[in-house]
């Protein structure tokens, strides 16, 4: 056969035999009506055709964009991979050094730790907000509170960064970190002189930045839990909180997981605010109060003064970041599949 099979053959009635189909077949005396119906049907077919092709081309465009971006990154990064090779696995990123060093691991480490920590700090708060908004808060507070949360999502990240530099970091340095060092110093996680510009500050700022997104999506997920599920718990004598725990959260868990993954994606890719508060030090850190760097923050810092191998190495970093994000996404999808399979709801 040549060409794609049309969804409906052009001159047969549609497969659903319904009243439309039968009256269209009824013969000549009702030519006017029949013509009208046929035209309406054709219109529907045309609409379907346009719709299908539009969505199809949208999908192609998206995939093409991703492939194109990755390919161009690869091409630009290839010289660096050839010149540096296993040097990317070194412990230090020092492009200006003699000789220059391009160890990407500390940056990967910085990216993972800040994003992971942000998720750890932000997601529980975001879920809490979502639960309050969708389940517990009296209706009068819900709307204003939701609007405030959504406003937070609209603040540009450079503004978060400014706030981080001038308010959050000094506050943490003066009022929080000394106490943290005093009580939890023995864990070794909070050693060193705390300047305020550090991994933890970046993670806290990131947590604040992902909270609006994660809580807004989570709220929608919780709202979509059917009344029947809530009533099942209520009829057993569940208190509002017990309804949340026994019916609402379990039902929505795959959606909540998805919301967290989106939060993680945002945290991994966030550049500006992190660059502004993380302290920009390109080596491994063991204390969360040490300055560090993430891949995006290095890219933002160095891209305008780089050339030659250095520039190519930055492209290579871009690929590495892409791979990190891809790996996390694949794991997330696998986990999601398992969640879905265990609690199979439609």
């Amino acid at each position: 056969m040549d060409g794609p099979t049309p969804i409906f053959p052009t001159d047969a009635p549609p497969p659903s035999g319904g009243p439309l189909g039968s009256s269209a077949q009824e013969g000549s005396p009702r030519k006017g009506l029949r013509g009208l119906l046929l035209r309406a049907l054709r219109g529907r077919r045309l609409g379907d055709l346009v719709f299908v092709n539009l969505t199809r081309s949208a999908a192609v465009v998206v995939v093409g964009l991703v492939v194109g971006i990755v390919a161009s990154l690869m091409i630009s990064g290839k010289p660096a991979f050839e010149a540096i090779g296993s040097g990317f696995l070194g412990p230090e990123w020092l492009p200006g050094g003699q000789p220059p060093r391009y160890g990407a691991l500390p940056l990967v480490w910085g990216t993972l730790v800040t994003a992971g920590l942000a998720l750890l700090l932000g997601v529980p708060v975001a879920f809490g907000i979502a639960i309050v908004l969708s389940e517990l808060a009296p209706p009068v507070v819900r709307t204003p509170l939701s609007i405030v949360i959504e406003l937070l999502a609209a603040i540009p990240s450079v503004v978060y960064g400014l706030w981080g530099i001038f308010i959050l970091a000094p506050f943490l340095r003066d009022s929080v970190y000394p106490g943290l060092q005093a009580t939890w110093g023995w864990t070794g996680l909070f050693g060193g002189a705390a300047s305020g510009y550090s991994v933890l500050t970046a993670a806290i700022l990131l947590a604040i930045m992902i909270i609006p997104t994660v809580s807004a999506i989570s709220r929608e997920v919780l709202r979509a839990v059917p009344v029947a599920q809530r009533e099942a718990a209520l009829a057993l004598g569940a208190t509002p909180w017990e309804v949340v725990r026994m019916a609402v959260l379990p039902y929505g868990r795959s959606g909540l997981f998805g919301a967290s993954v989106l939060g993680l994606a945002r945290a991994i890719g966030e550049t500006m605010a992190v660059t502004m508060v993380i302290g920009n030090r390109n080596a491994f850190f063991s204390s969360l109060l040490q300055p560090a760097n993430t891949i995006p923050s290095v890219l933002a810092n160095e891209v305008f003064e780089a050339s030659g191998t250095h520039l190519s190495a930055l492209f290579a970093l871009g690929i590495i970041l892409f791979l990190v994000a891809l790996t996390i996404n694949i794991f997330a999808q696998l986990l999601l599949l398992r969640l879905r399979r265990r609690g199979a709801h439609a």
Partner: protein
Amino acid sequence: MVDPAVGARRTAPALRETPSTKVAIGGLRAWFGSKQVLSDIDLDLPALRAIAIIGPSGCGKSTLIRTVNRMHELVRGARVEGRVVVDGHDIYAPGVDAVAVRRRIGMVFQKPNPFPTMSVGGNVAAGLRLNGVRDRAVLDAAVEKALRQAALWDEVKDGLDQPGVALSGGQQQRLCIARALAVGPEVLLLDEPCSALDPIATSKIEDLITELKERLTIIMVTHNMQQAARVADYTAFLYLGKLIEFDRTRRIFETPTQELTEKYVTGRFG
């Protein structure tokens, strides 16, 4: 020596003649917002009987049974006035905890609604867990008992850890009945429990209701006249939020005193 159980059994027929009142509804009115959907319902429901509530769609049947376990007030803007006296205690009296009321009065809904992330056993144990029961053995025993009472045990005993939603629709509905029974309610409210089920599953649930009323009081909404006639000892006919007639089921179907009732049960309704 006289076996006390035998003695009890001997007095049972007498009790059957004049059953005591389990749920006494008095002057009950209910609203959704400003719309009144129940007006001045007075209804004395006998203990250990199955009571059917019938009436055309939208007449307030669901609302009526939802006032009996204080579910109605959970809808935003919904309001109740009047009395619902269960065993001599008004559940709408000030200071009565609605949550505690719902733990004593079970409810099963039109569409089966097992918890999708819980196993069969987990669903049945859910209410007990709410009540703080943690002991594995106690839970297992209660799960088995409830599943037996719900006539589901034989079908699921080898798959208690399977997801509850993997059962068929009829099994799911019996699972929901088991879940309600597990906490030992004295009254069971059923809102069109069979309307999503096929005839075989329906007749299983009907048999079940007949068995269960030995132990608890059953209030059931149904659109199915035959069903009401088959399983209910008493039937209440509701129309436009008013109680038109309440009597033994046989009288409602054979010699109703109200013309409206007769028209409705004979299917000659406007």
